């Protein structure tokens, strides 16, 4: 059955066929025909954002909390350029998105027409792939292929640029089943020989550690289930990157906590001292490795990743396995069991005894206070009062983000959304709305810094309009806290431009948006206020006034190896040498 329809209708039809329920977007001249089609149907819900960057982060929050592809629709020119930060964010965190942009009509491309931008050129380096569709006949097929590319292999954002005349013209709709199979078919099954090599190493290792990342979450819930089974069966300790939190439960006995620059002492020292490192879906990011020549110097390293270019990119490994995490874990687990489920029991017992001494350091300890709210305390209370609830957490970027990763526990995958790779301030508020749209009855909290939060605060309007009862938990230190911390450590305490001046009254701001806000300054009032926030039926802005000069520890200073971390009370002066200072 072939069907004739306009390009604009094709867009909506193709999205429906792909099972899309929600589109985050903002209209404009170059996408009016598509908006006209959206108006005339009820299957796809359109969430009107307040800024296109918000649309992309919402689509990211939606995608990360559901495992589905997130979809956004924006106009040409400024609509497309406003989407660039979000696209780059999604590319670095491997989040599957399909972003549709309007373009000036084909016969005006290249004339500097009103609201013309070279969207394909601008977004080429910040998408996994992009397409300019110049012929309505090719539009539906391109959209179906876009979903395939976004969600297969290493996921990522893709963009389709659709000139306005292509939206108006009539063409043949190609259904999903009839779409040419894309040659883009990344390998999902790991090489059996490499898997066998890994299993053999696991049988004899004395000091093994699992180092897992966002790839486990991206692979799907099955990957997390297999990982848990593998960890339980082997008794190996496990740590994770910021991106991978929740794949293994924080309450699990083998859990060492997050690793990396602000990771836990036991996690980083286990990485440094292990004799077998099993990297599953992580990418040896510089936040993780610290100084490369000193990174885990005595270990054999295995790396499982769906992206062949990730293997040996930063750290040379002994065994590289290209494949989907769930596939590889399933085969490795089966093989390991069939060979007798062997581990080096004596070695492991000693290893755990060693880890126990590192855990005893209690690196997350901090000086409490009865007068001011310590940010760590605020998060401990938030954790205690929301634990066990059907809860999703997003964050902004800064100290609060690292404290959230340290003090909140994640029991399941897809419950933690944070901008890891790009470190985008302004991510958390829109992302929380995207999560809430996908999970209307769940508790969705954005742990924010006041400075980051202001970057996309206009999206409170979106939250109000679409009744997304997102909770904005702002750890307000009146500082660009993370910048201030680096200035203290690296720039002789010269706090250049790291004050948050002229902050709005967040309670009045909440009222202005039509929702509720509180300000809390006394630790005694914290619990009641958190409960009020949880119970409030609607968006909520929590202005949590915290200690202004708290530093985030533990910390591996730039250019230092894992075994030279700073714990809370360390003298912080002159710890980063000239070589480290050039690093970010």
């Amino acid at each position, binding site marked *: 059955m072939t069907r004739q329809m306009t390009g604009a209708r094709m867009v909506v039809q193709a999205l429906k066929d792909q099972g899309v329920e929600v589109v985050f977007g903002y209209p404009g001249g170059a996408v009016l025909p598509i908006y006209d089609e959206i108006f005339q149907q009820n299957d796809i819900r359109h969430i009107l954002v307040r800024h296109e960057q918000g649309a992309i982060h919402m689509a990211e929050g939606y995608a990360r909390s559901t495992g589905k592809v997130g979809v956004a629709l924006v106009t040409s020119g400024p609509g497309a350029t406003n989407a660039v930060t979000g696209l780059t964010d999604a590319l670095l965190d491997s989040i599957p998105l399909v972003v549709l942009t309007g373009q000036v009509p084909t016969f005006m491309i290249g004339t500097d027409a009103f609201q013309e931008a070279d969207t394909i050129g601008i977004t*080429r380096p910040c998408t996994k*792939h992009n397409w300019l569709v110049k012929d309505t006949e090719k539009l539906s097929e391109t959209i179906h292929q876009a979903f395939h*590319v976004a969600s297969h292999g290493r996921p990522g954002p893709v963009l389709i640029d659709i000139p306005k005349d292509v939206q108006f013209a009539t063409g043949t709709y190609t259904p999903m089943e009839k779409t040419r199979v894309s040659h883009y078919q*990344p390998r999902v099954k790991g090489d059996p020989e490499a898997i066998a090599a890994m299993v053999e190493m696991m049988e004899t290792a004395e000091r093994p550690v699992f180092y897992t990342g966002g790839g486990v979450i991206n692979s799907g819930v099955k990957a997390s289930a297999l990982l848990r089974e593998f960890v339980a069966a082997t008794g190996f300790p496990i740590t994770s990157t910021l991106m991978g939190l929740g794949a293994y439960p924080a309450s699990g006995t083998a859990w060492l906590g997050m690793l990396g620059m602000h990771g836990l002492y036991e996690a980083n020292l286990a990485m440094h001292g292990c004799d077998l490192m099993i990297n599953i879906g992580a990418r040896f990011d510089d936040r993780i490795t610290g100084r490369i020549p000193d990174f885990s110097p005595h270990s054999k390293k295995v790396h499982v990743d769906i992206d*062949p270019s990730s293997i*040996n990119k930063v750290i040379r490994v002994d065994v590289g396995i290209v494949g989907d995490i769930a596939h590889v874990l399933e085969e490795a687990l089966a093989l390991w069991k069939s060979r007798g489920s062997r581990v080096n029991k004596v070695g492991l017992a000693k290893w755990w005894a060693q880890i126990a001494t590192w855990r005893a350091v209690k690196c997350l300890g901090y000086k409490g206070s009865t007068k001011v709210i310590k940010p760590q305390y605020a998060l401990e209370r938030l954790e205690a009062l929301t634990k066990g609830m059907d809860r999703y957490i997003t964050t902004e970027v800064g100290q609060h983000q690292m404290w959230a990763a340290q003090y909140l526990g994640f029991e399941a995958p897809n419950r933690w959304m944070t901008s890891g790779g790009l470190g985008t301030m302004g991510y958390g508020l829109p992302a929380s709305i995207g999560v809430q749209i996908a999970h209307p009855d769940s508790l969705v909290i954005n742990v924010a810094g006041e400075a980051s939060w202001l970057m996309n605060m206009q999206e409170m309007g979106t939250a109000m309009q679409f009744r997304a009862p997102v909770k904005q938990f702002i750890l307000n230190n009146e500082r660009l806290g993370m910048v201030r911390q680096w200035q203290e450590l690296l720039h002789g305490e010269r706090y250049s431009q790291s004050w948050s001046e002229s902050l709005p009254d967040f309670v009045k701001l909440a009222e202005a948006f039509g929702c509720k806000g509180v300000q809390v300054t006394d630790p005694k009032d914290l619990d009641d206020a958190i409960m009020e926030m949880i119970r409030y039926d609607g968006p909520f802005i929590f202005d949590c006034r915290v200690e202004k000069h708290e530093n985030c520890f533990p910390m591996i200073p730039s250019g230092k190896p894992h075994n030279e971390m700073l714990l809370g009370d360390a003298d912080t002066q002159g710890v980063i040498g000239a070589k480290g200072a050039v690093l970010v």
Partner: protein
Amino acid sequence: MSPLNIKKSASSHSAYELRDPNAPVIETHTLAVIVENEPGVLARVIGLFTARGYNIDSLTVAEVDHTSHRSRITVVTTGTPEVIVQIKAQLARMVPVYEVHDLTVEGPAVQRELALLKVAGKGEARIEALRLAEIFRAHVVDSTLESFVFEMTGTPEKIDSFAELMRPLGLREMARTGVAALSRGV
């Protein structure tokens, strides 16, 4: 127009070239990348090289299969062995890329480049230019009383040495196609 300053080819092995024995080994590789001939595909490949700081010594591209719209991009690049491996992996994961072949490691390959050289001169220099052109099997494709345009095909090194010889004899302009390469045998 002044005589051209021609850079010595990266693969020249002069006895006077003093290398730091501890410097990382820099290798030159010729890659054949088979891609879908879609708009922007060349920009995408070049963008990868610039964004990640890889070198392009030479690059040619043309559609080689008009029915299936496949283009062949031949890239000559230099880097440490680790970087070369990364370049291949980064190319291979691009959506419009079908195949990546490293002709330098996949066995013997033939490499050819075509060059046009304009040499102006009179008298003895002019005769000398013609004599050398014959030795190098370059053809005269245009001539006036004061100039020749030579066409020659060969390895980039051969073209380099011919150009080097033509420089004192009045080399004015040169156009090169970049390298095309195929593996030997089947």
